[in-house]
C-alpha cells in the first residue's frame, strides 16, 4: 500500500478514504488541477530569494507515502495521548488524516448557528461558504508548490464558522496525528469569524513516533469579519525526522483583532509561512512565535504583514532558542501598500544562541509605499548573559537548570502575550516538556 505521492495517477485512483473534499466524485477536477500545478512548479532552490538560507538539498518528496488508517490499538493509544486543555468548547482528533473522535459543541452554540465540522463534511454540507473561503489567498512566500500539493491531497481538518455576535468563551481544540514511517498528512484549518464573533482555536500537530520520518503539509485560512476576535494557536511537535510545510493566511477585516501563536517544538525541517492581510480599517494582527530548535533541526519562518488599507496595526514577535547544530531562519516583510496611510507596524525577531554550532539567520524587511506611517523592525542575536547565569548559580541552581530557566523566561515573554491563562499554562507545560527531553 506504499504509494509514493509523486506518482500522481496511482495516488488519486487508489485512495481508499472518504471522497475528496472538493466534490462528490473520487477525483475532483479541482484536486486534479492542484496536482497539475504541483507537478508543474519547480522544487525550491536556494538562489531564489524566498528560499534564501534554507536547506533544500535533502528534501526528497518521493520518499513519502499516503497515510493509511490506524488500527484500533493505535487509535486508543492516540486518543489517550491527546491531552489538551482541561476545559474546551469542543475537540476533534485526527490520525493520518482520518477523524478518530469528535467531542461536539454545546447545543446552545449550535443553535446560535455555529458550524464546526470536519472539513470534508463542511465542503459537502456548506459548499458555498466553503468555496468562498477555502484557500482563496495565494501562498506567496515561496510555498506555492506545497500549497498546491496540499490542495491536491487535503482530506482532514476543521471547519469553524462563528456567526455574527457569537462568542465562544472556551477554546476549541484539534489534534492531528501523523503515524507510521514515511507517512504524510495534510491538515487544514478553516475559521470564518463573522461580525463581532469571538473564538479561540488550538491545533496540536503530533507524531506518534518521534524518530520516524514523515511529511506534513498544512494550510490555514483564517477570516475575520468586522470587529471579530480570533486567537489561533498552533503547537507543532512533529517527529524529529519530519519535513513540515505550513502555509498560513489571515485576513483581518474592519476593527477585527487577530492573534496567532506558533510553537515550533518538533520536526527536522520546519517551514512556516504566515501572511496577515490587514484588509479593513482599524484591523490589528498580532503574530507570535516561539521555536525551541536543537539537534539538527531547521526552523524556517517566513512572514508577511500586508497593510492594504489605512489605519491598521500589526505587531510581530518571533523568538528562537537554538542549541546544538540547529538553524533558524526568519525572513519577514512588512508591506504598506500605496494609500495605506497611518499604518502602525512592528516586527521583531530575537535569537538566543546556546551552542557554538547553532546558526541564526534573520532577514527582516520593510516595503513602504505610503506616508504618515510608523514602521519599525528589529533583529537581535545573542547568548545568555553571564551575569544572569552567575546570579542563578550563586543561588545554588545547577548550570543546566539555570540555562533552561533563562531560556524559558526568554520564550515565556512571547507566550504571555496571548492573554489567556489556561492556554499559556498549557504552552509553558509543553515547552518545559520539550526541555526535559
Amino acid at each position, binding site marked *: 500500500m506504499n504509494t509514493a505521492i509523486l506518482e500522481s495517477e496511482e495516488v488519486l485512483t487508489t485512495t481508499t478514504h472518504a471522497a475528496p473534499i472538493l466534490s462528490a466524485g473520487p477525483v475532483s477536477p479541482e484536486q486534479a488541477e492542484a496536482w497539475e500545478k504541483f507537478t508543474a512548479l519547480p522544487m525550491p532552490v536556494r538562489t531564489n530569494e524566498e528560499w534564501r538560507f534554507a536547506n533544500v538539498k535533502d528534501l526528497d518528496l518521493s520518499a513519502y507515502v499516503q497515510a493509511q488508517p490506524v488500527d484500533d490499538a493505535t487509535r486508543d493509544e492516540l486518543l489517550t495521548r491527546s491531552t489538551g486543555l482541561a476545559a474546551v468548547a469542543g475537540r476533534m482528533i485526527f490520525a493520518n488524516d482520518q477523524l478518530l473522535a469528535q467531542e461536539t459543541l454545546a447545543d446552545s452554540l449550535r443553535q446560535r448557528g455555529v458550524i464546526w465540522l470536519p472539513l470534508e463534511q463542511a465542503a459537502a454540507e456548506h459548499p458555498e461558504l466553503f468555496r468562498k473561503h477555502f484557500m482563496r489567498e495565494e501562498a506567496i512566500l515561496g510555498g506555492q508548490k506545497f500549497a498546491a500539493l496540499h490542495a491536491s491531497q487535503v482530506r482532514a481538518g476543521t471547519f469553524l464558522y462563528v456567526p455574527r455576535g457569537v462568542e465562544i468563551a472556551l477554546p476549541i481544540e484539534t489534534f492531528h496525528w501523523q503515524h507510521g514511517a514515511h507517512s504524510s498528512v495534510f491538515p487544514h484549518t478553516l475559521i470564518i469569524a463573522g461580525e463581532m464573533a469571538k473564538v479561540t482555536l488550538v491545533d496540536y500537530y503530533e507524531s506518534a513516533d518521534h524518530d520516524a520520518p514523515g511529511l506534513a503539509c498544512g494550510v490555514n485560512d483564517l477570516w475575520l469579519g468586522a470587529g471579530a476576535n480570533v486567537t489561533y494557536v498552533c503547537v507543532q511537535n512533529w517527529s524529529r525526522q519530519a519535513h513540515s510545510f505550513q502555509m498560513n493566511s489571515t485576513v483581518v477585516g474592519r476593527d477585527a483583532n487577530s492573534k496567532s501563536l506558533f510553537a515550533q517544538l518538533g520536526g527536522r525541517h520546519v517551514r512556516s509561512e504566515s501572511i496577515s492581510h490587514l484588509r479593513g480599517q482599524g484591523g490589528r494582527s498580532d503574530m507570535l512565535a516561539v521555536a525551541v530548535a536543537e539537534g539538527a533541526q531547521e526552523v524556517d519562518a517566513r512572514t508577511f504583514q500586508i497593510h492594504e488599507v489605512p489605519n491598521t496595526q500589526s505587531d510581530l514577535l518571533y523568538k528562537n532558542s537554538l542549541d546544538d547544530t540547529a538553524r533558524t531562519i526568519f525572513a519577514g516583510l512588512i508591506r504598506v501598500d500605496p494609500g495605506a496611510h497611518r499604518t502602525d507596524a512592528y516586527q521583531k525577531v530575537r535569537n538566543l544562541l546556546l551552542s557554538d554550532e547553532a546558526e541564526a539567520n534573520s532577514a527582516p524587511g520593510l516595503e513602504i509605499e505610503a506616508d504618515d506611517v510608523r514602521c519599525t*523592525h*528589529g533583529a537581535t542575536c545573542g*547568548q545568555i548573559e553571564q551575569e544572569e547565569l552567575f546570579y542563578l548559580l550563586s543561588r545554588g541552581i545547577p548550570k543546566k537548570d539555570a540555562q533552561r530557566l533563562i531560556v524559558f523566561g526568554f520564550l515565556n515573554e512571547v507566550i504571555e502575550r496571548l492573554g489567556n491563562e489556561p492556554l499559556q499554562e498549557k504552552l509553558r507545560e509543553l515547552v518545559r516538556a520539550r526541555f526535559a527531553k
Partner: protein
Amino acid sequence: MSTETTDQIAIDRTRGDFSYPESHLFDAGTGLTKDTVDYISRVKGEAEWIREFRHRALEIFKSKPMPTHWASKDLENIIFENIRYYLANGQKPTRSWDEVPDDLKRTFERLGIPEQERKFLAGVEAQFDSEAVYSNIKAAVGEQGVIFCGSTEGLREHPEIFRKWFGKVIPTGDNKFSALNSAVFSGGSFIYVPPGVKVKHPLQAYFRINAENFGQFERTLIIADEGSEVMYMEGCTAPKFETATLHSAVVELVAMKGAKIQYVTVQNWSANVFNLVTKRAIAHEEAEVKWIDCNIGSRLTMKYPGVVLKGRKARGEVISIALASDGQHQDTGAKMIHAADETTSNIVSKSISVGTGRSTYRGLVHIPKHLKGCKNNTECDALLINSKSRTDTYPAITVRGTGNSSQHEASVSQISAEQIFYMQQRGLTEAQAMSLSVNGFVNDLVRQFPMEYSVELKRLIDLEMEGSVG
C-alpha cells in the same frame, strides 16, 4: 493630523545641467568586444598581464547573468551595446592648477567649490571623463612616501606594490559589473601609504562624466600599510543627458595591521545615470575601515560598501545617507563579513524618499561559527516626504555560535505636520521648514563628514528641496 503632501516638492535639477564641447582624442566607439579591450589596453600602453586580465574579465562578464530575484527590473534597461567604453581627452595628469584647461575650471566653478577651498585641500585629483586630468599632490604627501596616482600609472610604475592586491579584494567574477569594470577600467586612484605614515590632509578626487552614452569605469585601489592612516574623498556631479549613462566603478581598500582608512563619497549623479558600484575593503588585525557614503541623484544606484574583517579586533563601519528624488531609486546598504575574533562592525543608514523616489537599504551581516566576541550594530532610518514616496529595508543577518552578538533596528517615519506648522508660525516658509527638518534628520551623520563635505552636503540637500513646497 495627516502629513499627506502630494507633488509639493519639485526638484530644480537645472543647476547640474551644463556641459561643454567634447574634444576626445581617444574614443573606443560604442559596444564591447575583444577589440575594444585591446584598444583600451594599447592606448594605455599596458603590460601584457593587464591585457590578459581584461580579456579574462570580458569572458566572465559575458557569461555572468544579471542579478536575479532581488534586483530592480530597471537594470534590464541598460543596453550594453550603446555604451562607450573608453574615452580620454588625451591629456596626461597634470600637476599644477595653472595647467588645468579653462573649461574644466569653469565646470568646477559651477559645482560651487571656491578656488580658495580647493587650494586648502591637500591633494586634488580631478577626473574628467576617463583619464585623470588633474592631480595636485601636496609636496608634503609625496615626501612622506605616499603614492597617489591614476590606475594606469599605478600599474605601470609601481606593479610591485599594486599588483599584489589588484583584483584580490573584489575578484573579477564577484558580480557582472565588477567583471565589466575589470574588462574596461580606466581612471580612478591608486594610493599607497607606507607603514606608520599618517596622511595629514585628506586625499581628494573629483570626477565628472561629460559625454553622452559614456560609461565611467574607474578603478580605485588604496593600500594603507601597517599603522598608517589615510582619508580619501570623492565627489561627483554629472550633467544631464537624454539617454542613460552607466557608471560602474570598483573600489578596493586594503588596511594592513593597525591601519586606518576612511573613504568618503558625496555623490550627485544626474537623473539618467545607472550607478552600479562594487566597493569592498579588507581589514587586517586591529585595522579600521570606515565608509562614509552619501548618495544623491542618479536613476538607479546599487552600492553596498563592504568590509571583510580578516584580522583580530578589526573594525568596519558604514555611514550612509541616501536621498531619492522623483523617479530615482537609491538601492544602497552595507556588507560586514566577520572572519576573525573580536571584530566589530557598525552600520548606520539614513534615507530620504521625495516625490516618487524610492530608497532601499540592503544589508548583509555574516558572523560565522567559532568566532568569539564579534559584534554588529545596524541602524536604518527612513524618512518619507510624500505619499507616493517609497522605502524598503532588506537586511540579512547570519550569526553562529554563542560568542557573538548582533542587533538590527530600522524605523520609517515622516516629517510631522506639527513640526512644519511650528516652524511656519515662526516665519519660515514651508520649503524652508521642510529643508530644515530633512537636514535635522541626517544631521548626526552629516557631522561625521569632513567639514567641507558636510557644507557641500547641506547645500545639496537644500538644492534638492529648493523650490519644493508651495
